């Protein structure tokens, strides 16, 4: 039975009166103790997470320790941690939701060995607060009391260590109970974890930064920033429309001056604002950091400012750019922060000379974050000198209104500056990607498939699954050398003459049970990360490359979608979804499939499946396969045509091409004109995705995971229209179809680059495709703009995307629902699914960014290593695609690089091209017009550059200590670049990327040749990379479409 107690609280009201509040407090005889040593597990009802049985002691942190050292308690090495409810509440009330949520996630995470004990609801653990006892003392006392109870509850079998920061408590309780030790946290780390160096370092750095903060609070000199308004005022202000809520977005290229607040939700409609709000200067930004959700007050109209149109470099912070900014836009200042989005930041400590310049206080060092958008962070450390050549991870602790910069503490070292591994690690941390190798606990749950112990289809599964092994001709079409095949196709004629088309997807959910270790890990990773030279798998390779992969000639589980099509019109008449067993007969590559399709049978010898057959059966089999391929192509054409006439557009097919040119890492894979068979496979996958989307939405209207692509904002197209006008084209952007049509027409026969540039601009104007939960969106918003489908989802690549795993589970549940069986899969509720979608979208964005950044890293390394003898390689032809006040933006088709080239340098000299078209820097002035820019020297010579002019640029790399290296472009002639050797560029432009990656990897190898093992590992990575390229083309197309829909505005250099 519950026992009732009363708690009396005295609160002070806003008016200053005291309010007496009486609250009930119920105690119960038993609360879950989550210990495997529990003598009465039934009474305690220990469901869910249990503490590990293999620990030598339990550790109970005091409230202060939880508040201040939570980061250390997050170390997976620390096991057997019991968080007392009192401590958790102290975090919740005094540290805010951010930290409390961190604690909650920690407790929820099955990988961490920690539990919560609700001591305040246990009748023997609860101690009422005595009169005159301070809150702090009471919290410590109640935690200690609970620790003692817990010790006796486990029948004195497990020693308990309570760690506290309170010296008095150590003395008072230290020797009170045998078996319950009370020691300080530092002491605990020293005695129990002497080898856990990272924890010690972190502890020191936290301690130091706290001390600093305390001493600073006492000093408290003049305020640098106005105080934030209290939350109630902010909320009331947002409601009344006086303030506006939005996410702060710092301009990467002018991080000190410009930031924009993107409006959120309803507030934009109410205030009638269409554009973002400009936040000008650090003062107005008022301590908010990129990504924070802030509350903004608009300034009066006469204080509005315009955004700068001039190109500018980050280091030159002089605002004397001279030219007037563009028209004023709404400008505001931050009055409060609703949600801080601080994460781990990679920083570089200043070099020795710079430290001396900073002088004054040698212990406090201003570290420069790798990300331009983050302000410098003040770190108190004694190791600054030792760390100056390294990339270092730090966290921000606080930002007081009295301090110009935020305070932070040092967490760990990543690697040397300029070292490839260190830089890759930097990219991973900056995108919050954590890719520790799969743990043993996760791997031991995996099935095995070794020659001694081969994996077999189990008889139970054989009964419940539809067996297609003997009835269907299943084959897969993938790029050469692909290992992870997640889709296969089949087509056959039914008895009634109709056709049956089947899409078979690897059944990953059979191996990955919901909420198993591997599932949780996959969910956190959300996707496989592909960097330029390596990849980080979402699932362990036993699944991704073996048991789930639909390889040729072996039995595999699959989830299939099969349509019955009318024999002549190819109308879909019936559809069947379900689990199957298949055996893929052929593992074709695209080129071979295309050859077969065109009736060229010479490739037959390359197909391994045909090798051992005698001539006759070979002929028969071949005919069967060719018929299937032909039929498949027919069907795909039909489906495509139907989508087209429904108002669908061929945007994505075209965009693939653009993005291919920009993302050269796939350049060598796909020729400019993709083979028809590529499209055939892609079309089948889109069809499967579409039908599965319909199915799961019908069965679960409020909790299905779909993918939407909202139509773009018309105003984003204005730059595209302007540009096209310069060349005399008209772009109609009213709907997706008109856009595609007018883009097709906008083709300059003399210069194919124009069309590509226009298309890439159109791509930039579009928004991202996103996953969402159907319960949180109106049905009209489900539409997919790019594919012109009313419902779409991702179903076909469960090996490398978690969203597909969720969709598979939904589909399975939908099937059992149809059969009126009990739904065994525990599905996500709408709210959880929404949360999950946000996470997956977030991770996808991180994956795209990291891929882009790693490509840039390789590009830079490539150009950096070029000595003067290779100079000519760094000179290339570029096309101007945008004009700014002091320079132009240039696209280099050969390398797929976009960047800024200045026409006016820091000394105020302008570029001028003589009669031999060589450029020189001379004093003069610049004039910018709608679509051209003219530089006039004092001597009267003038040079004019127009949109889409071809110029010759020199590519160089600017090495930066604190940030990633950047590529510099310099116009050296206003004439197109004539290649001395006409043969090379075409060839090199095709294989360049892989060559580039290999070359860079090789040079790294050479540098590390001393460590031979290391070099070997890299070799393996290189091989792995080759395999990475072998992903199925469809997945590539999918990825590229995602890339195409990515907001690439920050890559355009201004």
């Amino acid at each position, binding site marked *: 039975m519950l026992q009732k107690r009363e708690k009396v609280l005295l609160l002070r009201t806003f008016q200053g009166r005291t309010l007496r509040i009486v609250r009930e407090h119920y105690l119960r005889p038993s609360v879950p103790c989550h210990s495997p040593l529990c003598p009465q597990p039934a009474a305690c009802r220990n469901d869910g997470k249990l503490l590990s049985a293999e620990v030598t002691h339990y550790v109970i942190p005091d409230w202060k320790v939880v508040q201040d050292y939570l980061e250390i308690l997050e170390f997976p090495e620390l096991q057997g941690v019991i968080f007392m409810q009192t401590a958790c509440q102290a975090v*919740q009330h005094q540290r805010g939701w951010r930290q409390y949520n961190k604690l909650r996630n920690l407790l929820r995470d099955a990988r961490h060995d920690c539990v919560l004990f609700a001591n305040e609801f246990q009748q023997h653990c609860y101690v009422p607060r005595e009169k005159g006892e301070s809150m702090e003392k009471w919290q410590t006392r109640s935690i200690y009391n609970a620790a003692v109870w817990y010790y006796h509850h486990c029948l004195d079998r497990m020693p308990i260590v309570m760690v506290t920061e309170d010296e008095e408590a150590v003395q008072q309780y230290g020797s009170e109970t045998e078996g319950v030790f009370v020691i300080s946290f530092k002491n605990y780390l020293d005695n129990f974890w002497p080898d856990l160096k990272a924890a010690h370092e972190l502890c020191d750095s936290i301690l130091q930064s706290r001390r600093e903060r305390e001493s600073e609070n006492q000093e408290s000199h003049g305020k640098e920033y106005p105080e934030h308004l209290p939350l109630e005022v902010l909320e009331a202000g947002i409601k009344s429309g006086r303030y506006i809520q939005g996410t702060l977005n710092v301009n990467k290229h002018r991080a000190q001056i410009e930031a924009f607040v993107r409006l959120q939700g309803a507030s934009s409609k109410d205030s009638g604002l269409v554009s973002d709000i400009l936040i000008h200067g650090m003062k107005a930004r008022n301590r908010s950091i990129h990504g924070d959700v802030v509350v903004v007050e608009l300034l009066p109209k006469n204080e509005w400012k315009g955004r700068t149109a001039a190109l500018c470099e980050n280091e030159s912070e002089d605002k004397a750019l001279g030219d007037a900014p563009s028209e004023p836009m709404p400008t505001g200042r931050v009055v409060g922060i609703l*949600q801080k989005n601080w994460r781990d930041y990679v920083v570089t400590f200043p070099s020795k000379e710079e430290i001396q310049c900073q002088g004054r206080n040698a212990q406090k060092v201003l570290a420069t974050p790798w990300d331009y958008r983050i302000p410098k962070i003040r770190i108190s450390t004694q190791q600054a000198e030792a760390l100056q050549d390294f990339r270092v991870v730090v966290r921000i602790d606080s930002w007081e209104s009295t301090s110009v910069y935020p305070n932070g503490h040092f967490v760990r070292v990543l690697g040397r500056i300029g070292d490839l591994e260190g830089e890759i690690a930097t990219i991973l941390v900056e995108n919050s990607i954590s890719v520790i190798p799969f743990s043993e606990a996760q791997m031991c749950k995996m099935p095995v498939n070794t020659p001694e112990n081969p994996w077999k289809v189990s008889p139970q599964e054989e009964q419940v699954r539809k067996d297609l092994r003997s009835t269907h001709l299943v084959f897969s079409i993938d790029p050469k050398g692909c290992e992870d095949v997640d889709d296969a196709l089949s087509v056959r004629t039914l008895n009634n003459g109709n056709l049956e088309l089947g899409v078979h997807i690897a059944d990953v959910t059979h191996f990955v049970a919901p909420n198993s270790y591997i599932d949780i890990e996959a969910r956190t990773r959300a996707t496989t990360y592909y960097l330029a030279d390596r990849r980080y798998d979402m699932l362990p390779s036993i699944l991704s490359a073996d048991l789930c992969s639909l390889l040729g000639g072996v039995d595999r589980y699959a989830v299939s979608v099969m349509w019955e099509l009318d024999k002549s019109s190819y109308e879909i008449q019936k559809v069947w979804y379900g689990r199957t067993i298949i055996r893929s007969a052929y593992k074709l590559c695209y080129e071979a499939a295309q050859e077969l399709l065109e009736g060229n049978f010479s490739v037959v010898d390359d197909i391994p499946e045909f090798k051992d057959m005698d001539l006759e059966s070979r002929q028969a089999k071949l005919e069967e396969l060719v018929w299937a391929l032909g039929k498949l192509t027919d069907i795909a054409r039909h489906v495509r045509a139907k989508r087209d006439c429904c108002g669908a557009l061929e945007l994505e097919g075209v965009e693939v091409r653009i993005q291919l040119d920009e993302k050269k890492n796939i350049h060598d894979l796909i020729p400019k004109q993709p083979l028809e068979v590529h499209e055939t496979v892609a079309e089948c996958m889109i069809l499967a995705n579409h039908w599965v989307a319909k199915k799961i939405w019908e069965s679960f209207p409020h909790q299905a995971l779909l993918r939407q692509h909202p139509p773009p904002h018309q105003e984003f197209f204005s730059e595209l229209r302007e540009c096209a006008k310069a060349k005399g084209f008209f772009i109609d952007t009213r709907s997706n179809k008109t856009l595609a049509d007018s883009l097709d027409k906008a083709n300059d026969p003399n210069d194919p680059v124009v069309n590509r540039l226009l298309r890439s601009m159109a791509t930039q104007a579009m928004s991202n495709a996103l996953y969402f939960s159907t319960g949180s969106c109106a049905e009209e918003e489900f539409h997919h703009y790019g594919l012109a489908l009313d419902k779409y989802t991702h179903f076909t690549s469960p090996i490398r995307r978690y969203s597909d795993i969720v969709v598979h589970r939904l589909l399975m549940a939908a099937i059992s629902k149809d059969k009126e069986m009990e739904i065994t899969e525990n599905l996500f509720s709408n709210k959880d699914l929404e949360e999950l979608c946000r996470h997956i979208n977030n991770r996808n964005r991180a994956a795209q960014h990291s891929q882009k950044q790693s490509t840039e890293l390789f590009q830079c390394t490539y150009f950096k290593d070029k000595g003067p003898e290779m100079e000519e390689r760094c000179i290339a032809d570029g096309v101007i695609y945008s004009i700014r006040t002091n320079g132009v933006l240039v696209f280099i088709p050969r390398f797929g690089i976009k960047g800024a080239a200045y026409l006016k340098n820091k000394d105020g000299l302008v570029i001028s091209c003589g009669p031999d078209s060589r450029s020189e820097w001379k004093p003069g002035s610049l004039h910018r017009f709608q679509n051209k820019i003219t530089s006039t020297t004092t001597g009267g010579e003038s040079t004019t550059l127009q949109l889409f002019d071809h110029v010759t640029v020199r590519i160089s790399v600017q090495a930066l200590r604190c940030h990633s290296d950047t590529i510099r472009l310099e116009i050296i002639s206003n004439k197109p670049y004539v290649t001395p050797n006409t043969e090379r560029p075409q060839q090199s432009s095709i294989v360049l990327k892989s060559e580039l990656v290999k070359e860079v990897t090789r040079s790294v190898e050479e540098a590390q040749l001393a460590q031979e093992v290391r070099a070997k590992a890299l070799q393996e990575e290189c091989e792995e990379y080759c395999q990475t390229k072998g992903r199925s083309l469809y997945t590539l197309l999918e990825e590229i479409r995602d890339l195409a829909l990515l907001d690439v505005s920050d890559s355009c250099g201004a």
Partner: protein
Amino acid sequence: MAGLELLSDQGYRIDGRRAGELRKIQARMGVFAQADGSAYIEQGNTKALAVVYGPHEIRGSRSRALPDRALVNCQYSSATFSTGERKRRPHGDRKSCEMGLQLRQTFEAAILTQLHPRSQIDIYVQVLQADGGTYAACVNAATLAVMDAGIPMRDFVCACSAGFVDGTALADLSHVEEAAGGPQLALALLPASGQIALLEMDARLHEDHLEQVLEAAAQAARDVHTLLDRVVRQHVREASILLGD
């Protein structure tokens, strides 16, 4: 963002109850000798006193008399000291009028009014301490008082409130939980037949969740019934001992 965590991950509410658990209920019948029937109830820290007079002749204008059944007259008031801040609450303000009407509706459904045509039954309820669920406490107190007065009823009327937080229905909300602003549903149930005497909710709640919340409230009302039943039997036992049977 801000605000209290009403339901922790471990399934505890702020005061230590689990989602379906009621607050402690204590009740006594026959607290005033003067009245025909009276009762006092404590549901957690919500304390209410109910007094019943009647059935008697219609007081005041005779035109109010109903030819076929008794008139049920309910009045609700709350003490100045019932909440944290002392505040005078004059009679006849909107809140107490509304509460009076709700009580009247509830009891017209429960009392067999057709047995006493042309007469009147008065129910006066006063809340001495308000800590959430005042309507429920009033109904439960009034039920006991009506029984104490010996007025025939169809069944007990048992009331309980329920709320909805993070996908879970909470039974018997306390003041803190009510103040958090989530949806709150008040239900008066005739437990034996499962009929609903009154159902009230004035916040937005998705249709899909209504059933879940309703079931939680109904279960809580049935639990209340078990407790009240015990109180009534205890009272009858005491009374019969006094009568000397």
